[in-house]
């Protein structure tokens, strides 16, 4: 049991995965000597060499495309995209190649690739450094998509993602990298990667979140509790596949659901959850599923990003509204 930040937990998880399987290679911009701009790969090139921790030329399509080739040769590439907003040059390789090779080849070709993306806002950055591109990957068959929200999960989930034989887009809430500290028990039994989890039980309404908004929702639940309202909070963890079993179970009890993410509301993951939960729990719902997310504008300049991002007030406001129907 060690107390560590999310960044350190990911670093430890990557290290463990590299020790366990020498086919694991890390690729990306500045991941080697520097250890990544967020230091997630700190020390790995020193310990595993530059054949396994590869500083690549500055071309995201090139990184993902060559990782495909390495995967076809039996390697398990873990690709770092430096910031969410820089994944788009690699989009074609991800959507048309990474996602489709298994299907195209009828399972003969496997692409056990992990694409790590530091995502989300709240770090006061310039443009393209605060995006939440997950919906686009969830919409793409052939990809799996997960998001961690705390150090303990991060440590385990990154290893599970690397171990998976399918390509996984691995979303890391960058604003928590160096702030979220928690105990990580390296020997604890791991929860399955493809499962959501109730992180705070409650009975009046349900909040669903993932990545950086899990803590927002937990805060909201604390405040609501003071006001006598009991909110259940679910950390999705896996976005594709979506594990809505605990959500359905919860909504059948609470009758009210609010989904919270930083991605733009329109066609964010919340839209899919709203559609599915409504279909599944139609007669249990006391109110429509409401969504709190980034507005349908480009990500704004940093000085007003807090207004753009879902916060405690907007979450509680949405909860209130579900009681108004």
């Amino acid at each position, binding site marked *: 049991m060690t107390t560590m930040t999310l960044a350190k937990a990911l670093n430890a998880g990557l290290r463990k995965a590299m020790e366990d399987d020498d086919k694991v*290679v890390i690729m990306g911009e500045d991941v080697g000597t520097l250890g990544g701009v967020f230091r997630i790969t700190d020390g790995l090139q020193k310990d595993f060499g530059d*054949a*396994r921790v590869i500083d*690549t*030329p500055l*071309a995201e*399509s*090139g990184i*993902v*495309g*060559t*990782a*495909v*080739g*390495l*995967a*076809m*040769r*039996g*390697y398990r590439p873990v690709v770092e995209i430096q910031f969410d907003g820089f994944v788009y*040059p690699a989009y*074609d*390789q991800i959507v*048309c*190649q990474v996602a489709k*090779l*298994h*299907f*195209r*080849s*009828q*399972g*003969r*070709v*496997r692409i*056990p690739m992990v694409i790590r993306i530091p995502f989300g806002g709240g770090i006061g950055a310039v443009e393209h450094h605060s995006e939440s591109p997950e919906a686009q990957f969830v919409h793409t*068959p*052939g990809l*799996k998509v997960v998001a961690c929200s705390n150090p303990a999960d991060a440590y385990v989930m990154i290893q599970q993602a690397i171990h*998976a*034989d*399918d390509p996984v887009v691995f979303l890391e809430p960058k604003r928590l990298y160096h702030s979220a500290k928690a105990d990580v028990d390296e020997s604890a039994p791991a929860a399955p990667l*493809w499962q959501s989890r109730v992180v705070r039980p409650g009975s009046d309404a349900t909040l669903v979140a993932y990545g950086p908004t899990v803590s927002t929702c937990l805060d909201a639940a604390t405040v609501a509790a003071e006001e006598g309202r009991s909110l259940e909070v679910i950390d999705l963890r896996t976005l*594709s*596949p*979506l*594990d809505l079993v605990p959500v359905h179970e919860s909504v059948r009890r609470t009758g009210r659901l609010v989904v919270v993410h930083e991605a733009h509301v329109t066609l964010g993951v919340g839209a899919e959850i709203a559609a599915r939960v409504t279909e599944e729990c139609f007669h249990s719902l006391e109110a429509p599923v409401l969504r709190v997310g980034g507005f349908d504008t480009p990500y704004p300049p940093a000085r007003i990003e807090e207004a753009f991002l879902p916060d405690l007030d907007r979450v509680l406001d949405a909860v209130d509204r579900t009681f108004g129907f």
Partner: protein
Amino acid sequence: MTDPVFGPAPERAPDPELVQLLTPEGERVHHPGFDADFSAEQLRGFYRDMVLVRRLDIEATALQRHGELGLWAQLLGQEAAQIGAGRALAPQDYVFPTYREHGVAWCRGVDPVRLLALFRGVDQGSWDPAEHNFGLYTIVIGAQTLHATGYAMGVQRDGLVGTGDPERDTAVVAHFGDGASSQGDVNEAFVFAASFNAPVVFFCQNNQWAISEPFERQSRIPLYRRSHGFGFPGIRVDGNDVLATYAVTKAALQRAREGQGPILIEAYTYRMGAHTTTDDPTRYRLSDDVEHWKLKDPIARLEVYLRRNGLADDDFLAEVAAEADALGERMRRECHALPDPSPHDLWDLVHAEKTAELAAQQAEYDAHAASFEEVS
């Protein structure tokens, strides 16, 4: 780094020069860098390959006309480029093709019926890449050049470059077209291959056309010089000359296997047919041009050479022709017999580990389909 075979470093490269060992008239010419001796058997082999591959192509085109295939991408005119490139491979080498590499597929032992299945719409490629060391056809132009480069980086990590053991040292080939050379991916592949000195041979069939666009739209200098800007050699070979293509590719592969890094081969050839069976080239090119290139036919020149030098007689030619007939007949027969896939299987193919989500959708589909079977 002056290369004994490919000549001086890029910046001092000589003027464009087409490596040629067999002229369009069927005359054997010599080239200082690539003078190989070919055995009679080898030459007859090239001839046989080219004739069979041309038949394969004609047969598939006919099958498309008869509605048996949705589409076919013809290789007519590019037989020498593909057989030369394909026969130069060692078994352990790995090839990343485009959608037109039927001749290379042939050399790698992929059954032509597998190609038909893809263009019939039965599947998206049903050979086992690992069995043939031949990747699936890639339709997004240029994407596979990065896969090839990454695969070559894997070969390096496996320690299979420069060991000196000819059975183990491995090279990778990335095929692409003149049009594809404009894609970012291809140029990024050049960057990565140079940066990591990856054992990859970039093999561009410059067939002068990208659908309706002439080569000049993509580059104002000969394409083989593109690599000079990235710090590795490029060379132009007569892509209608199977001997030259073979010799140049073989040397390039050897160079890569030895650890001397990437190289670009521009096989200068011509797309004699349409882009695909849905294309109508009369809309954008002169038949004069096509006529001109007919004189450079890759098979005819080798046939002249074989005959003139007594390396092949009528019996041999008849034998090959009969083999081609048999191939055509088998393709027709087996194409008709190709079973349609079952929609039920779709959900099994998405992932290595099927998700509950997809299993549920599959069950829903099955129930829906069953409800119709009951009705009918």
